[in-house]
Protein backbone atom coordinates (compact mmCIF):
# COMPACT_ATOMS: atom_id res chain seq x y z
CA UNK A 1 0.00 0.00 0.00
CA UNK A 2 1.14 3.54 -0.68
CA UNK A 3 2.19 5.89 2.11
CA UNK A 4 -0.70 6.36 4.56
CA UNK A 5 -2.04 9.87 5.18
CA UNK A 6 -3.90 8.67 8.25
CA UNK A 7 -2.49 6.07 10.57
CA UNK A 8 -4.36 5.02 13.70
CA UNK A 9 -2.71 2.54 16.06
CA UNK A 10 -4.32 0.98 19.11
CA UNK A 11 -6.72 3.89 19.59
CA UNK A 12 -8.70 3.68 22.82
CA UNK A 13 -11.19 6.30 23.97
CA UNK A 14 -13.26 6.05 27.14
CA UNK A 15 -16.13 8.29 28.26
CA UNK A 16 -16.57 8.26 32.04
CA UNK A 17 -15.54 4.63 32.26
CA UNK A 18 -17.44 3.37 29.19
CA UNK A 19 -15.12 2.30 26.40
CA UNK A 20 -16.14 3.91 23.09
CA UNK A 21 -13.12 2.73 21.09
CA UNK A 22 -10.97 -0.23 22.03
CA UNK A 23 -7.60 -0.66 20.34
CA UNK A 24 -8.62 0.50 16.87
CA UNK A 25 -6.09 0.18 14.03
CA UNK A 26 -6.92 1.95 10.77
CA UNK A 27 -5.03 3.48 7.87
CA UNK A 28 -6.00 5.63 4.91
CA UNK A 29 -3.51 5.63 2.05
CA UNK A 30 -2.60 8.64 -0.05
CA UNK A 31 -5.48 9.16 -2.50
CA UNK A 32 -7.39 6.18 -1.18
CA UNK A 33 -11.15 5.87 -0.63
CA UNK A 34 -11.73 4.07 2.66
CA UNK A 35 -15.03 3.22 4.32
CA UNK A 36 -15.73 2.73 8.00
CA UNK A 37 -18.96 0.83 8.45
CA UNK A 38 -20.81 0.35 11.67
CA UNK A 39 -24.19 0.57 13.33
CA UNK A 40 -25.33 3.39 15.58
CA UNK A 41 -23.23 3.51 18.74
CA UNK A 42 -20.40 1.42 17.30
CA UNK A 43 -17.96 4.27 17.98
CA UNK A 44 -17.77 5.84 14.52
CA UNK A 45 -18.38 9.40 15.67
CA UNK A 46 -15.85 9.04 18.48
CA UNK A 47 -13.26 8.03 15.92
CA UNK A 48 -14.08 11.10 13.81
CA UNK A 49 -13.75 13.35 16.85
CA UNK A 50 -10.45 11.79 17.81
CA UNK A 51 -9.14 12.26 14.25
CA UNK A 52 -10.11 15.94 14.34
CA UNK A 53 -8.57 16.41 17.76
CA UNK A 54 -11.92 17.08 19.44
CA UNK A 55 -11.56 14.21 21.91
CA UNK A 56 -8.34 13.07 23.54
CA UNK A 57 -7.37 9.41 23.18
CA UNK A 58 -6.83 7.42 26.38
CA UNK A 59 -4.34 5.20 24.58
CA UNK A 60 -2.91 4.69 21.13
CA UNK A 61 -1.62 6.96 18.42
CA UNK A 62 -3.08 8.99 15.59
CA UNK A 63 -0.74 10.19 12.87
CA UNK A 64 -2.08 12.46 10.15
CA UNK A 65 0.33 13.42 7.39
CA UNK A 66 -1.02 16.56 5.80
CA UNK A 67 -4.30 18.25 6.54
CA UNK A 68 -7.48 16.49 7.60
CA UNK A 69 -10.86 18.15 7.31
CA UNK A 70 -14.26 16.77 8.11
CA UNK A 71 -17.86 17.09 6.99
CA UNK A 72 -19.43 16.24 10.34
CA UNK A 73 -22.43 14.07 11.05
CA UNK A 74 -25.67 16.00 10.74
CA UNK A 75 -23.91 18.47 8.38
CA UNK A 76 -23.57 21.08 11.17
CA UNK A 77 -23.60 24.09 8.87
CA UNK A 78 -23.62 27.62 10.30
CA UNK A 79 -27.36 28.08 9.86
CA UNK A 80 -27.43 31.85 10.40
CA UNK A 81 -24.65 32.50 7.90
CA UNK A 82 -24.74 32.50 4.11
CA UNK A 83 -23.35 29.62 2.06
CA UNK A 84 -20.41 31.78 1.05
CA UNK A 85 -19.65 32.69 4.69
CA UNK A 86 -19.84 29.01 5.63
CA UNK A 87 -17.25 28.26 2.97
CA UNK A 88 -15.00 31.16 3.96
CA UNK A 89 -14.91 29.97 7.56
CA UNK A 90 -13.87 26.54 6.31
CA UNK A 91 -10.62 28.25 5.36
CA UNK A 92 -10.29 29.87 8.81
CA UNK A 93 -6.95 28.20 9.55
CA UNK A 94 -5.51 29.30 6.19
CA UNK A 95 -5.45 33.01 6.92
CA UNK A 96 -7.15 35.68 4.84
CA UNK A 97 -5.58 34.74 1.50
CA UNK A 98 -6.68 31.13 1.85
CA UNK A 99 -10.34 32.07 2.16
CA UNK A 100 -11.15 32.70 -1.49
CA UNK A 101 -14.15 30.54 -2.33
CA UNK A 102 -13.98 30.66 -6.15
CA UNK A 103 -12.38 27.23 -6.55
CA UNK A 104 -15.11 25.56 -4.48
CA UNK A 105 -17.83 26.84 -6.83
CA UNK A 106 -15.95 25.21 -9.69
CA UNK A 107 -15.72 21.90 -7.82
CA UNK A 108 -19.31 22.03 -6.55
CA UNK A 109 -21.20 24.14 -9.13
CA UNK A 110 -24.53 23.48 -7.39
CA UNK A 111 -23.40 25.87 -4.64
CA UNK A 112 -22.76 28.82 -6.98
CA UNK A 113 -26.47 29.59 -7.42
CA UNK A 114 -27.20 29.57 -3.69
CA UNK A 115 -24.08 31.30 -2.40
CA UNK A 116 -26.00 34.19 -0.80
CA UNK A 117 -28.70 32.07 0.85
CA UNK A 118 -28.66 31.28 4.56
CA UNK A 119 -27.33 27.76 5.06
CA UNK A 120 -30.02 27.00 7.65
CA UNK A 121 -32.74 27.46 5.01
CA UNK A 122 -31.31 24.91 2.57
CA UNK A 123 -32.38 21.33 1.92
CA UNK A 124 -30.47 18.48 3.55
CA UNK A 125 -28.66 17.66 0.33
CA UNK A 126 -27.62 21.28 -0.20
CA UNK A 127 -26.40 21.48 3.40
CA UNK A 128 -24.35 18.32 2.91
CA UNK A 129 -22.75 19.94 -0.12
CA UNK A 130 -22.02 23.08 1.93
CA UNK A 131 -20.44 20.90 4.63
CA UNK A 132 -18.23 19.17 2.05
CA UNK A 133 -17.33 22.48 0.39
CA UNK A 134 -16.51 23.98 3.78
CA UNK A 135 -14.21 21.04 4.54
CA UNK A 136 -12.53 21.36 1.12
CA UNK A 137 -11.74 25.02 1.91
CA UNK A 138 -9.14 23.77 4.38
CA UNK A 139 -7.35 22.28 1.32
CA UNK A 140 -7.10 18.87 2.97
CA UNK A 141 -5.13 15.83 1.84
CA UNK A 142 -7.77 13.69 3.51
CA UNK A 143 -11.48 14.37 3.84
CA UNK A 144 -13.54 12.64 6.53
CA UNK A 145 -17.23 12.48 5.65
CA UNK A 146 -19.37 11.40 8.59
CA UNK A 147 -22.72 9.94 7.47
CA UNK A 148 -22.89 11.28 3.93
CA UNK A 149 -26.23 9.67 3.10
CA UNK A 150 -28.13 10.01 6.38
CA UNK A 151 -31.64 11.34 5.71
CA UNK A 152 -30.99 12.16 2.06
CA UNK A 153 -32.86 10.98 -1.03
CA UNK A 154 -31.00 8.40 -3.17
CA UNK A 155 -30.70 10.72 -6.16
CA UNK A 156 -29.03 13.41 -4.04
CA UNK A 157 -26.70 10.85 -2.46
CA UNK A 158 -25.71 9.72 -5.96
CA UNK A 159 -24.74 13.29 -6.89
CA UNK A 160 -22.66 13.67 -3.74
CA UNK A 161 -20.95 10.31 -4.34
CA UNK A 162 -20.13 11.40 -7.89
CA UNK A 163 -18.49 14.55 -6.52
CA UNK A 164 -16.40 12.51 -4.08
CA UNK A 165 -15.33 10.17 -6.88
CA UNK A 166 -14.28 13.10 -9.04
CA UNK A 167 -12.38 14.77 -6.20
CA UNK A 168 -10.60 11.50 -5.53
CA UNK A 169 -9.79 10.71 -9.17
CA UNK A 170 -8.85 14.20 -10.33
CA UNK A 171 -7.37 15.77 -7.22
CA UNK A 172 -6.02 12.70 -5.48
CA UNK A 173 -8.05 13.53 -2.38
CA UNK A 174 -8.10 10.70 0.14
CA UNK A 175 -11.54 10.11 1.65
CA UNK A 176 -12.55 8.33 4.84
CA UNK A 177 -16.28 7.70 4.53
CA UNK A 178 -18.04 6.92 7.79
CA UNK A 179 -21.32 5.24 6.90
CA UNK A 180 -24.27 3.30 8.23
CA UNK A 181 -25.26 2.59 4.64
CA UNK A 182 -22.82 -0.24 3.99
CA UNK A 183 -23.97 -0.87 0.43
CA UNK A 184 -23.17 2.69 -0.60
CA UNK A 185 -19.85 2.71 1.24
CA UNK A 186 -18.66 -0.59 -0.23
CA UNK A 187 -19.60 0.46 -3.76
CA UNK A 188 -17.71 3.72 -3.56
CA UNK A 189 -14.61 2.78 -1.60
CA UNK A 190 -11.47 0.73 -2.27
CA UNK A 191 -11.13 -0.63 1.23
CA UNK A 192 -13.35 -0.84 4.26
CA UNK A 193 -13.35 -1.46 8.00
CA UNK A 194 -16.25 -2.78 10.04
CA UNK A 195 -16.56 -1.33 13.53
CA UNK A 196 -18.63 -3.08 16.20
CA UNK A 197 -18.83 -2.04 19.85
CA UNK A 198 -15.64 -0.01 19.58
CA UNK A 199 -13.53 -2.69 17.85
CA UNK A 200 -12.59 -3.30 14.23
CA UNK A 201 -14.05 -6.75 13.57
CA UNK A 202 -13.45 -6.99 9.82
CA UNK A 203 -11.33 -5.17 7.28
CA UNK A 204 -10.11 -5.54 3.73
CA UNK A 205 -10.91 -4.78 0.11
CA UNK A 206 -14.41 -3.38 -0.27
CA UNK A 207 -15.33 -5.79 -3.08
CA UNK A 208 -14.37 -8.79 -0.94
CA UNK A 209 -16.18 -7.49 2.13
CA UNK A 210 -19.31 -6.98 0.04
CA UNK A 211 -19.37 -10.73 -0.58
CA UNK A 212 -18.44 -11.73 2.96
CA UNK A 213 -21.43 -13.50 4.51
CA UNK A 214 -20.85 -11.83 7.88
CA UNK A 215 -21.15 -8.43 6.21
CA UNK A 216 -24.07 -9.31 3.99
CA UNK A 217 -26.01 -10.74 6.89
CA UNK A 218 -25.44 -7.84 9.28
CA UNK A 219 -25.17 -4.81 6.99
CA UNK A 220 -26.59 -5.61 3.55
CA UNK A 221 -29.93 -7.05 4.61
CA UNK A 222 -28.89 -10.60 3.74
CA UNK A 223 -28.45 -9.91 0.02
CA UNK A 224 -25.09 -10.28 -1.64
CA UNK A 225 -24.19 -7.00 -3.30
CA UNK A 226 -23.92 -7.06 -7.06
CA UNK A 227 -20.30 -7.28 -8.04
Amino acid at each position, binding site marked *: MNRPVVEVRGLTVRYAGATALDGVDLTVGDGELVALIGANGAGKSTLVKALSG*LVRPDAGQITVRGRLAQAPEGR*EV*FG*DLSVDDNLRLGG*WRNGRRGRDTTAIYELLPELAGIRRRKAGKLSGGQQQMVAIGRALMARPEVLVVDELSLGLAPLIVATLVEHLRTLNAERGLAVLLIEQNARLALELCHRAYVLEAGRIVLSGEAAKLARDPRVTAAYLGGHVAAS
Partner: protein
Amino acid sequence: MTDFLGYLLTGLGIGAGYALVASGLVAIYRVTRVVNFAQGAFAVIAAMLTGTLLAAGLPHGLAELAGLLVAAVTGLLVGMVAIGRSGTEPGTSLIVTLGMGVFAYAVEILIWGDQPRSFAGLPGVADVAGARLQAHYLLILGVTVPIFLAMAAFFARTDLGKALSACASNRYAARVVGIDVRRMGLLAFALGGALGGLAGVLTTPVQQVTFDSDVSLIVNGFAAAILGGLTRPAVALLGGLLLGVAQTLIAGYGGGAYQLEVALLLMLTVMIVQAARTGQVQEALR
Protein backbone atom coordinates in the same frame (compact mmCIF):
# COMPACT_ATOMS: atom_id res chain seq x y z
CA MET B 1 -45.10 70.35 21.76
CA THR B 2 -41.66 71.75 22.55
CA ASP B 3 -41.91 69.92 25.88
CA PHE B 4 -42.57 66.73 24.00
CA LEU B 5 -39.64 67.27 21.63
CA GLY B 6 -37.37 67.96 24.58
CA TYR B 7 -38.48 64.80 26.38
CA LEU B 8 -38.10 62.84 23.16
CA LEU B 9 -34.50 63.95 22.54
CA THR B 10 -33.51 63.53 26.18
CA GLY B 11 -35.14 60.09 26.13
CA LEU B 12 -33.22 59.15 23.01
CA GLY B 13 -29.98 60.18 24.70
CA ILE B 14 -30.74 58.15 27.82
CA GLY B 15 -31.98 55.26 25.68
CA ALA B 16 -28.74 55.27 23.70
CA GLY B 17 -26.92 54.53 26.96
CA TYR B 18 -29.22 51.57 27.61
CA ALA B 19 -28.70 50.44 24.03
CA LEU B 20 -24.93 50.40 24.52
CA VAL B 21 -25.27 48.29 27.67
CA ALA B 22 -27.65 46.05 25.71
CA SER B 23 -25.24 45.77 22.79
CA GLY B 24 -22.54 44.54 25.17
CA LEU B 25 -24.93 41.91 26.51
CA VAL B 26 -25.80 40.90 22.95
CA ALA B 27 -22.16 40.73 21.83
CA ILE B 28 -21.33 38.39 24.72
CA TYR B 29 -24.53 36.32 24.52
CA ARG B 30 -24.30 35.82 20.74
CA VAL B 31 -20.89 34.24 21.02
CA THR B 32 -20.98 32.48 24.39
CA ARG B 33 -24.71 31.98 25.23
CA VAL B 34 -23.90 33.58 28.58
CA VAL B 35 -26.07 36.40 29.95
CA ASN B 36 -23.43 38.61 31.53
CA PHE B 37 -24.79 40.16 34.70
CA ALA B 38 -21.50 41.97 35.33
CA GLN B 39 -22.28 44.15 32.29
CA GLY B 40 -23.34 47.15 34.40
CA ALA B 41 -20.10 47.02 36.37
CA PHE B 42 -18.09 47.74 33.19
CA ALA B 43 -19.99 51.01 32.84
CA VAL B 44 -19.46 51.95 36.49
CA ILE B 45 -15.72 51.17 36.45
CA ALA B 46 -15.13 53.09 33.22
CA ALA B 47 -17.12 56.08 34.50
CA MET B 48 -15.40 56.18 37.91
CA LEU B 49 -11.94 55.85 36.39
CA THR B 50 -12.63 58.50 33.76
CA GLY B 51 -13.80 60.87 36.52
CA THR B 52 -10.61 60.29 38.49
CA LEU B 53 -8.38 60.80 35.45
CA LEU B 54 -10.21 64.01 34.46
CA ALA B 55 -9.82 65.30 38.01
CA ALA B 56 -6.10 64.49 37.79
CA GLY B 57 -5.85 66.76 34.75
CA LEU B 58 -6.02 64.35 31.85
CA PRO B 59 -7.83 65.95 28.87
CA HIS B 60 -11.26 64.82 27.67
CA GLY B 61 -10.96 62.10 25.06
CA LEU B 62 -7.85 60.58 26.57
CA ALA B 63 -9.50 60.02 29.97
CA GLU B 64 -12.59 58.46 28.36
CA LEU B 65 -10.40 56.25 26.16
CA ALA B 66 -8.48 55.02 29.20
CA GLY B 67 -11.81 54.27 30.90
CA LEU B 68 -12.90 52.23 27.88
CA LEU B 69 -9.65 50.28 27.74
CA VAL B 70 -9.82 49.38 31.42
CA ALA B 71 -13.48 48.34 30.95
CA ALA B 72 -12.41 46.12 28.04
CA VAL B 73 -9.69 44.52 30.18
CA THR B 74 -12.22 44.09 33.01
CA GLY B 75 -14.51 42.39 30.49
CA LEU B 76 -11.69 40.07 29.52
CA LEU B 77 -11.01 39.21 33.18
CA VAL B 78 -14.69 38.51 33.88
CA GLY B 79 -14.72 36.35 30.74
CA MET B 80 -11.67 34.40 31.89
CA VAL B 81 -13.33 33.59 35.19
CA ALA B 82 -16.77 32.91 33.67
CA ILE B 83 -15.87 30.83 30.60
CA GLY B 84 -12.15 30.18 31.01
CA ARG B 85 -12.64 26.56 31.97
CA SER B 86 -13.78 24.69 28.91
CA GLY B 87 -17.05 22.84 29.28
CA THR B 88 -18.58 25.34 31.72
CA GLU B 89 -22.35 25.48 31.18
CA PRO B 90 -23.72 28.93 30.20
CA GLY B 91 -26.03 28.80 33.24
CA THR B 92 -23.04 28.31 35.54
CA SER B 93 -21.16 31.13 33.82
CA LEU B 94 -24.18 33.40 34.35
CA ILE B 95 -23.99 32.86 38.11
CA VAL B 96 -20.24 33.51 37.97
CA THR B 97 -20.86 36.87 36.24
CA LEU B 98 -23.42 37.74 38.92
CA GLY B 99 -20.77 37.03 41.54
CA MET B 100 -18.19 39.07 39.66
CA GLY B 101 -20.66 41.97 39.56
CA VAL B 102 -21.01 41.90 43.35
CA PHE B 103 -17.24 41.55 43.73
CA ALA B 104 -16.89 44.67 41.57
CA TYR B 105 -18.93 46.60 44.21
CA ALA B 106 -16.27 45.88 46.80
CA VAL B 107 -13.46 46.98 44.50
CA GLU B 108 -15.33 50.14 43.47
CA ILE B 109 -16.10 51.12 47.06
CA LEU B 110 -12.48 50.48 48.10
CA ILE B 111 -11.13 52.71 45.34
CA TRP B 112 -13.81 55.37 44.88
CA GLY B 113 -16.01 55.20 47.98
CA ASP B 114 -19.79 54.96 48.04
CA GLN B 115 -20.73 58.54 47.12
CA PRO B 116 -22.20 59.44 43.73
CA ARG B 117 -19.76 60.86 41.22
CA SER B 118 -19.99 62.71 37.97
CA PHE B 119 -17.88 64.73 35.60
CA ALA B 120 -18.55 67.40 33.03
CA GLY B 121 -19.47 66.34 29.54
CA LEU B 122 -20.14 68.40 26.44
CA PRO B 123 -20.97 71.85 27.88
CA GLY B 124 -23.84 74.06 26.83
CA VAL B 125 -27.48 73.85 25.96
CA ALA B 126 -28.74 72.86 22.53
CA ASP B 127 -31.82 74.32 20.92
CA VAL B 128 -33.61 71.91 18.58
CA ALA B 129 -36.73 73.39 16.99
CA GLY B 130 -37.51 75.34 20.13
CA ALA B 131 -36.82 72.48 22.54
CA ARG B 132 -33.92 73.12 24.88
CA LEU B 133 -31.81 70.31 26.28
CA GLN B 134 -28.26 69.68 27.44
CA ALA B 135 -26.01 69.42 24.41
CA HIS B 136 -24.43 66.31 25.90
CA TYR B 137 -27.58 64.26 25.09
CA LEU B 138 -26.92 64.91 21.40
CA LEU B 139 -23.32 63.76 21.85
CA ILE B 140 -24.52 60.46 23.35
CA LEU B 141 -26.78 59.89 20.33
CA GLY B 142 -24.10 61.06 17.91
CA VAL B 143 -21.63 58.49 19.26
CA THR B 144 -24.03 55.59 19.76
CA VAL B 145 -25.54 55.42 16.29
CA PRO B 146 -22.18 55.18 14.44
CA ILE B 147 -20.99 52.60 17.00
CA PHE B 148 -23.98 50.41 16.14
CA LEU B 149 -23.37 50.86 12.42
CA ALA B 150 -19.71 49.92 12.90
CA MET B 151 -20.70 46.86 14.92
CA ALA B 152 -23.17 45.75 12.26
CA ALA B 153 -20.47 46.12 9.60
CA PHE B 154 -17.95 44.26 11.77
CA PHE B 155 -20.24 41.24 12.23
CA ALA B 156 -21.47 41.19 8.62
CA ARG B 157 -18.34 42.04 6.64
CA THR B 158 -15.20 40.86 8.43
CA ASP B 159 -14.03 37.27 8.77
CA LEU B 160 -13.40 37.81 12.47
CA GLY B 161 -16.97 39.06 12.90
CA LYS B 162 -18.26 36.06 10.96
CA ALA B 163 -16.18 33.71 13.08
CA LEU B 164 -17.72 35.27 16.21
CA SER B 165 -21.19 34.78 14.73
CA ALA B 166 -20.24 31.22 13.77
CA CYS B 167 -19.55 30.40 17.43
CA ALA B 168 -23.08 31.53 18.26
CA SER B 169 -24.61 29.74 15.28
CA ASN B 170 -22.97 26.35 15.81
CA ARG B 171 -20.24 25.89 18.42
CA TYR B 172 -19.45 22.34 17.38
CA ALA B 173 -19.01 23.29 13.73
CA ALA B 174 -16.89 26.25 14.77
CA ARG B 175 -14.53 23.85 16.52
CA VAL B 176 -14.57 21.54 13.50
CA VAL B 177 -13.30 24.30 11.18
CA GLY B 178 -10.65 25.24 13.72
CA ILE B 179 -12.11 28.35 15.33
CA ASP B 180 -10.95 28.66 18.94
CA VAL B 181 -14.38 29.03 20.54
CA ARG B 182 -12.98 29.94 23.96
CA ARG B 183 -10.75 32.67 22.57
CA MET B 184 -13.68 34.07 20.58
CA GLY B 185 -15.75 34.08 23.78
CA LEU B 186 -13.03 36.05 25.58
CA LEU B 187 -12.87 38.49 22.68
CA ALA B 188 -16.65 38.93 22.97
CA PHE B 189 -16.28 39.63 26.70
CA ALA B 190 -13.62 42.27 25.98
CA LEU B 191 -15.85 43.84 23.33
CA GLY B 192 -18.78 43.72 25.76
CA GLY B 193 -16.58 45.39 28.37
CA ALA B 194 -15.67 48.22 25.99
CA LEU B 195 -19.32 48.75 25.00
CA GLY B 196 -20.41 48.78 28.64
CA GLY B 197 -17.58 51.19 29.42
CA LEU B 198 -18.69 53.46 26.59
CA ALA B 199 -22.21 53.53 28.06
CA GLY B 200 -20.70 54.56 31.41
CA VAL B 201 -18.46 57.38 30.19
CA LEU B 202 -21.16 58.74 27.87
CA THR B 203 -24.03 58.85 30.37
CA THR B 204 -22.20 59.89 33.56
CA PRO B 205 -22.20 63.64 32.72
CA VAL B 206 -26.04 63.58 32.66
CA GLN B 207 -26.64 60.87 35.26
CA GLN B 208 -24.46 60.54 38.35
CA VAL B 209 -22.82 57.20 38.87
CA THR B 210 -22.54 55.21 42.11
CA PHE B 211 -21.10 51.80 42.76
CA ASP B 212 -24.58 50.28 42.47
CA SER B 213 -25.65 52.13 39.30
CA ASP B 214 -25.05 48.86 37.53
CA VAL B 215 -28.42 47.54 38.75
CA SER B 216 -30.49 50.06 36.83
CA LEU B 217 -28.12 49.80 33.86
CA ILE B 218 -28.35 46.02 33.67
CA VAL B 219 -32.15 46.00 34.14
CA ASN B 220 -32.65 48.57 31.40
CA GLY B 221 -29.97 47.04 29.18
CA PHE B 222 -31.41 43.56 29.59
CA ALA B 223 -34.93 44.83 28.86
CA ALA B 224 -33.64 46.38 25.62
CA ALA B 225 -31.60 43.31 24.66
CA ILE B 226 -34.34 40.76 25.35
CA LEU B 227 -36.53 42.47 22.73
CA GLY B 228 -34.25 41.01 20.08
CA GLY B 229 -33.93 37.67 21.86
CA LEU B 230 -30.50 38.79 23.14
CA THR B 231 -29.03 38.18 19.69
CA ARG B 232 -29.96 41.13 17.48
CA PRO B 233 -28.02 44.37 18.02
CA ALA B 234 -30.31 46.45 15.78
CA VAL B 235 -33.39 45.46 17.80
CA ALA B 236 -31.46 46.14 21.02
CA LEU B 237 -30.74 49.66 19.77
CA LEU B 238 -34.42 50.24 19.01
CA GLY B 239 -35.39 48.69 22.34
CA GLY B 240 -32.98 50.89 24.26
CA LEU B 241 -34.16 54.07 22.54
CA LEU B 242 -37.81 53.13 23.03
CA LEU B 243 -37.22 52.45 26.71
CA GLY B 244 -35.36 55.74 27.21
CA VAL B 245 -38.12 57.74 25.51
CA ALA B 246 -40.90 55.92 27.39
CA GLN B 247 -39.21 56.57 30.74
CA THR B 248 -38.56 60.23 29.99
CA LEU B 249 -42.14 60.80 28.84
CA ILE B 250 -43.53 59.12 31.94
CA ALA B 251 -41.16 61.11 34.17
CA GLY B 252 -41.97 64.32 32.31
CA TYR B 253 -45.74 64.06 32.25
CA GLY B 254 -46.31 61.88 35.29
CA GLY B 255 -44.08 60.99 38.20
CA GLY B 256 -40.35 60.58 38.07
CA ALA B 257 -40.14 57.67 40.45
CA TYR B 258 -41.30 54.89 38.12
CA GLN B 259 -38.45 54.68 35.63
CA LEU B 260 -37.05 51.30 36.64
CA GLU B 261 -40.56 49.85 36.87
CA VAL B 262 -41.16 50.78 33.24
CA ALA B 263 -38.16 48.70 32.24
CA LEU B 264 -39.17 45.78 34.42
CA LEU B 265 -42.72 45.85 33.03
CA LEU B 266 -41.46 45.97 29.45
CA MET B 267 -39.01 43.14 30.13
CA LEU B 268 -41.69 40.93 31.69
CA THR B 269 -44.17 41.62 28.89
CA VAL B 270 -41.63 40.85 26.19
CA MET B 271 -40.46 37.69 27.93
CA ILE B 272 -44.00 36.41 28.43
CA VAL B 273 -45.00 37.16 24.84
CA GLN B 274 -41.82 35.61 23.44
CA ALA B 275 -42.09 32.55 25.66
CA ALA B 276 -45.64 31.99 24.48
CA ARG B 277 -44.62 32.43 20.86
CA THR B 278 -41.30 30.70 20.41
CA GLY B 279 -39.81 29.46 23.65
CA GLN B 280 -36.88 31.72 22.83
CA VAL B 281 -36.59 33.05 26.36
CA GLN B 282 -36.35 29.68 28.05
CA GLU B 283 -33.67 28.95 25.47
CA ALA B 284 -31.95 32.24 26.33
CA LEU B 285 -31.99 31.62 30.05
CA ARG B 286 -31.16 27.95 29.97
